[in-house]
């Protein structure tokens, strides 16, 4: 069994000098290695270094090593803690709860819907996803604006109008991210549902399992892997959302929608505190890296 798998995957030719050959085989990897090293690994290492200095945008010659100062400062800074908290709200609210649940519901419902309705919902949800980030930001600004479409809808339903962007900006940006990002989850789940064995669902149906029962005990366990992958991916995507929030609220009013990326940008470029901004970036990287490790564990690059 094992040798068969090995020979299927192994090179067809008998091997000559092994070391030289595998070096030659690895050659096509070189361009990507170069690009990744210079433009990703380089900046990340630089980030680790810079975060321990007092680098500023002006007077770069006067950079000193300041140890953990940036970090003690960050964790003693109410604005930073506020940004950390809002990032958590944003990621859990808009990705884990919003995009994930809505995406799954849409995928499940679309299977049961008539064809034109399915196409329609696919079309509009994906349209929001394809839109460029800043355009999405403006459209969502218009939507949540005091005289905007959302309040018109609420007014028609006899509900009170809200000044969303002023009173609940974090909710507004969360909903905006749900609007923009749900398509991704919907597509992942549609693809996954498509591969749930029909016999399994039918068997459960025969046994008298209702819709919810079937979903909970048959469908969801079967697509478990897709759920985990999707949750991880959208968490990571949402963690680094910047343009959408910046176009909608610039983190405001005050700091009521200031997530970590926005806070980081403002510290580094508007307050010229590159060192401090980099320390925040490092926190963001570490959070992303932690999620990434969990993601790796879940995916487990195929055993070989």
């Amino acid at each position, binding site marked *: 069994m094992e040798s068969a798998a090995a020979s299927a995957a192994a090179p067809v030719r008998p091997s000559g000098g092994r070391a030289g050959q595998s070096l030659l085989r690895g050659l*096509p990897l070189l361009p990507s290695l170069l690009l990744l090293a210079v433009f*990703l690994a380089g900046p990340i290492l630089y980030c680790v270094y810079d975060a321990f200095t007092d680098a500023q945008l002006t007077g770069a010659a006067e950079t000193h090593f300041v140890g953990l100062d940036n970090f003690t400062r960050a964790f003693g800074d109410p604005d930073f803690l506020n940004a950390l908290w809002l990032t958590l709200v944003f990621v859990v609210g808009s990705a884990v709860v919003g995009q994930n649940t809505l995406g799954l519901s849409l995928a499940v419902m679309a299977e049961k819907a008539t064809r034109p309705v399915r196409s329609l919902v696919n079309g509009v949800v994906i349209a929001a996803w394809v839109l460029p980030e*800043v355009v999405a930001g403006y459209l969502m600004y218009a939507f949540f604006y005091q005289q905007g479409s959302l309040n018109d809808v609420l007014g028609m339903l006899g509900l009170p109008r809200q000044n969303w962007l002023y009173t609940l900006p974090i909710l507004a940006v969360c909903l905006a991210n749900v609007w923009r990002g749900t398509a991704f989850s919907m597509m992942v789940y549609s693809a*996954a549902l498509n591969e749930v064995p029909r016999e399994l669902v039918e068997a459960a149906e025969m046994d008298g399992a209702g819709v919810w029962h079937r979903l909970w005990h048959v469908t969801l366990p079967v697509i478990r892997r897709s759920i985990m*992958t999707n949750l991880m991916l959208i968490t990571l995507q949402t963690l680094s959302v910047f343009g959408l929030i910046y176009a909608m609220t610039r983190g405001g009013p005050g700091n009521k929608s200031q997530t970590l990326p926005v806070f980081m940008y403002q510290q580094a470029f508007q307050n010229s505190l590159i060192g401090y901004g980099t320390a925040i970036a490092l926190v*963001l990287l570490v959070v992303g890296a932690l999620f990434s490790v969990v993601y790796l564990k879940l*995916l487990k690059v195929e055993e070989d």
Partner: protein
Amino acid sequence: MATTDLRPAARAGRSGGAARPVPAVTTARRRVRPARVAVNLVLLVISLLFVLPLVWMVFASVSSTASFELNLPSPPTLDNFHAILNTETTFRPLLNGLLLCGGATLLCVVVSILAAYPLSRYRSRLRRPFLYTVLFSTGLPITAVMIPVYSMFVQVELIDSMAATTLFLAASALPIGIWLMKNFMDGVPIVLEEAARIDGANAMQSLARVVLPLMWPGVTVVTVFTFISMWGNFFVPFVLLLSPEKLPASVSVFTFLSAHDQTQYGQLAAFSLVYTLPVVMLYLLLTRKLGGGFALGGALKG
């Protein structure tokens, strides 16, 4: 509702006396129709909420008195488009975007095809660590890297360079590009290459002549999605480019409001529409030919 009343009679007529012991199935079937109607209704309401912001964009773009309110344009006018369709406002940012994103996409796709080949075809001790690293870096928030990249670019005087920005964009899309490309390439059976190998083709020749033609749909999906995400990317060019004449549309749309009269919402909407159109068309083309997002969703299942 009338159809609901008619159905039991129709079914009774159809099945006749043949299927007597099926009351359970009949009730189950009877429940299907109202459920389907409900599902359709819910989906229509959600669609409506999703489409409203887009409707605003279309209406405002052809309205002479556009605001953030949703109003029917009366009468519709093309003035906003006339006002923005010039080199300064629209054509140059679009061209810049095309150069940046087109160049970066091309680079990213070629480099990830090259990288995917050994990863998909050969076993080696270094393969797994490399795959893990690639997968790990797909998760790193690029947003967080922008400040160090900025500092680095300042030091080596690459700030405001379109070429350097293109290279960085390509590198940032590379991890996911390599990953998807490898998944698609794994779908091409290695047996098919054997014939070519026996005829004396080397690895690169069999990649070009056998593997690539068979995974063309996958390559197209990766290309289109890479381009779309770059076309919309705001933060990278926002940080790395400074000169107004080098900015792509993703950044110029942002500076649009401050640069123009504060009340030109109609022009903003028109510009957004023109800027969005290329990626929407690209996406539609992809869906027509290959099932678009569905193919991507499938490749990302893990």
